């Protein structure tokens, strides 16, 4: 089913739908949708109660797609995610019971609470678009989007994601606290019941795939490709950085910048699109050396510094 809307209208419809619930979060919403459209996954890291789960839910509801949620705990097993083959007494055969991962939008809540074994099962699925159960490959739906959340304040009993797995997320977003006026609006909206219940689907999976196709056709000049590469390469020798960003980061910047250009109704990418997306895409991939960490440097400030240092094409 398609709604017959233009790609930009599809985006605006989804963004408006989300905006009715997520007050004052237009920027993060726009960036998350850019990752969603190009098939990247998003890691939301923020304090409890800032709307991480709500954002994932409202996205799933806005699209007429399947949504599942996994609450990660230390005793969660890979089979709890991927599914398991059960023996049926009646026909004396094994039948595959698909796990929650076989869906379109997956909310992996508090991903850093599960053991590394379980985390890697999810991350394999994210990278390959498939799961292997009992030696059999099972493809995930074409529209597969993971929103993982983690909480930056609690570390007891958690398993921080290894660098290689952080790299699988297209970007890391922070929602942050909203402005007082927006918070008042949230109170007003939720005085009677949760606005989430009134969200109606406004687009289909096919619309999103059409959006993805259109984003791939957004044009990007050689000069701006070079700019992306310069920014990413800048992280590799930056002071205080042990491990810089990979070429996968360059790819992610290019694709999400294309999506942003599409959202703006532009047929080509401008430097502003690249600059808008560069920090969320790069920062979580950097590994700082301990000395820099103790000096108060964060990956975000390093990425921002690099963005300031590399000359912008104008």
């Amino acid at each position, binding site marked *: 089913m398609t709604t017959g809307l233009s790609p930009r209208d599809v985006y605006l419809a989804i963004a408006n739908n989300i905006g009715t619930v997520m007050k004052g979060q237009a920027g993060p919403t726009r960036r998350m949708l850019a990752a969603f459209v190009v098939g990247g996954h998003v890691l939301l890291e923020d304090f409890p109660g800032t709307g991480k789960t709500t954002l994932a839910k409202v996205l799933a509801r806005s699209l007429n797609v399947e949504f599942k949620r996994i609450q990660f705990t230390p005793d969660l097993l890979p089979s709890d995610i991927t599914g398991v083959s059960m023996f049926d007494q009646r026909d004396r055969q094994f039948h595959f019971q698909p796990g929650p991962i076989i869906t379109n939008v997956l909310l992996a809540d508090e991903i850093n609470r599960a053991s590394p074994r379980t985390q890697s099962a999810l991350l394999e699925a994210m990278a390959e678009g498939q799961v292997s159960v009992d030696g059999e490959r099972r493809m995930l739906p074409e529209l597969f989007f993971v929103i993982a959340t983690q909480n930056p304040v609690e570390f007891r009993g958690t398993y921080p994601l290894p660098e290689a797995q952080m790299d699988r997320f297209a970007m890391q977003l922070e929602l942050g606290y909203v402005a007082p006026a927006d918070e008042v609006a949230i109170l007003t909206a939720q005085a009677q019941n949760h606005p989430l219940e009134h969200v109606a689907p406004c687009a289909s999976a096919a619309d999103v795939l059409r959006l993805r196709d259109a984003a791939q056709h957004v044009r990007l*000049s050689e*000069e701006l490709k070079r700019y992306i590469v310069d920014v990413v390469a800048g992280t*590799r020798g930056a002071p205080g950085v042990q491990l810089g960003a990979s070429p996968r980061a360059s790819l992610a910047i290019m694709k999400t910048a294309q999506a942003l250009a599409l959202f703006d109704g532009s*047929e080509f990418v401008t430097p*502003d699109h690249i600059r808008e997306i560069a920090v969320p895409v790069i920062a979580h991939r950097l590994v700082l050396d301990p000395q820099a960490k103790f000096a108060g440097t964060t990956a975000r400030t390093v990425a921002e510094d690099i963005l300031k240092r590399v*000359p912008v094409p104008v």
Partner: protein
Amino acid sequence: MATVMRFPPFLLGATVLFWGWMVGWLPAAIVGAVALELPRWIRWRWEFSAQDMNRLWDLCGLLFIGKAVIAYATSDLVEGSAHFMPWLPVIFFPFAAAHAFSAQDNVRLNTYFWLRRKKPPHAPSGWFVPYWYFVLCFLSVSSANVQDYRFYLGVAVLGGWLLWSCRGRNAPAWRWAMTLGCVAALGFAGQAGLTHLQNVTQAVLGQFIREFAHLDADVAQSRTAIGAVGTLKLSNRVLLRVETPRNQPPPALLRKASFDTYDGSSLPARWTTKGADFADVSAGAELGVWPLLPAGDTSLVARVTMFLPVGTGILPVPLGAAALTDLLAASVETNAYGTVRAREGQPLIRYTIRYGGTASVDPPPTPRDLAIPEAERATFRQVAAQLGLAGLPPRQAMARVSRYFADHFTYSRYLRGSRQPLRQFLLETRAGHCEYFATATALLLREAGVPTRYAIGYAVPEDDRGGTHLVRARHAHAWTLAYADGAWRDVDTTPATWEAIEEESRPPLQWVSDVFVWVKYQFARWRYYSDRGLLARIVFWLAPVVVAWFAWRIFARQRRARRVVTAVPVERKSRGIDSEFYRIEERLAQAGRGRRPDESLGDWLRREQLAEPLREALALHYAYRFDPRGITGEQRRELHRQVEQWLATAGVPGQSGRKSEEP
């Protein structure tokens, strides 16, 4: 767009010309100046890689070190730097020229420092070559030491030229010029004042230093340790090298000075002279020959080598020295107390002593050579009577005194301290160091009617290392000169065991410092006495080889690099660079609302709250610059129109930009 550093056109060439004019190498400077400014007219450039620049810098560094070594080895520090400094722009010219002809704007910091070479380039910053080359030329010119208005005028004009290019745009030019004029005038007055101050200070201080720190102190008096308390300590530093033919013993004693008046009124006691002026020794017919006695005995030979800090000082010689040969010095002088002094020799001075007879440069004795201080008279009268010295011929008196000290006295470096040290030495302890023996002998012989003097210098040790005897600080010695049978003679009554006792104080690791001293000595000998032209010749022949090797490494890479470049053309920023939108940027920059280098156009316009009025123009500009498909002629005209309209209507202060042609 990267910020490109600017250097005023033709300033570097003018500076090189100024350098050539001042140091007197104008033809070379003209060639260099043309070479540095030529890239303004020609279009092609070399694609030097960072590694090429590193190599080129290494080459310049090598030339720098080579030239510095030659300059130091062939002359002293002051003269050497005067020869060296004018070469600086020549040495670094290859690097400056390579930069001028290269496509890069800047040279990374990593090139200049070896320690940073391994690290990744930190930022696109570096040292801009024309700036430091400009400073280098100035440094070089200042060493040429042209002390007239030309130098100051040149520096002021060239410095002003550079400052003009980076003056503040807000102040009017006349105010800038007046300020610069004032600064230049103040600077001129200041340096004139400084020069005057330096002359005055030198005149005042020179006399003071000469009296205070210099030579005459040693000759006018000798402070002894007689009457002091403690233990005599002397270092093991090698002071002199005495070389003699293999079958000939070295001179036992080398005298530095002698004294005729004992002053025990204040302790520690001193020996002094009445002060004697030095008189020049007339140089011999051959170079380096200085005859001290017209017809002296020259049967014995000893060659002495020693460090003499400024090439001026006392030369230790044996009593019967008749002539000094192989001595390179401006002048040699002697005084009435037998001291020989050289002026303006090499810092490592070397001389051959020819000696053998009993005649010496010292004149016959005076009444002062027989004077005994009143306070000591009773003691010496008592001892002289005990030895029966009265009425003995001088030679016999000397022999008896020598035997007396040899039989009854011991050597000791332990200083007891006393109100009457000589009395204590002669009658109680009968132990002391050489100064006690020399003083007691001198006064005792005077009591016997023999004129005597107190001599200081070195006792040359007998240990023979292939005819070379090392005289160390602990071999410093004092003894007596006695006048008998018409000549002065050495009378050394210190017990012969003294050298053995001093030898015990030799530290176990003496050889380590000896090795260092030996190396320093060998280097100095090579520096001052060998054929230094050899080094210059070696470097002269080696330099082209090194330069050729570096050039080959750089240009071999260059050819490869260019082949690669022609195969895969590097995309240059060219499309859309003539967009009219830059005029808006220029206009706003003039109004102090310029874009920061880290801002994109979009960010900047949002900051300046111009995003909405300029939205369409920016979109067209972005399409022109960044859409690979480009824009149509119609859109291009629209961009032009929008920019013109905005420039015409916007109330931004500043001059209007130049008109651009229709595309």
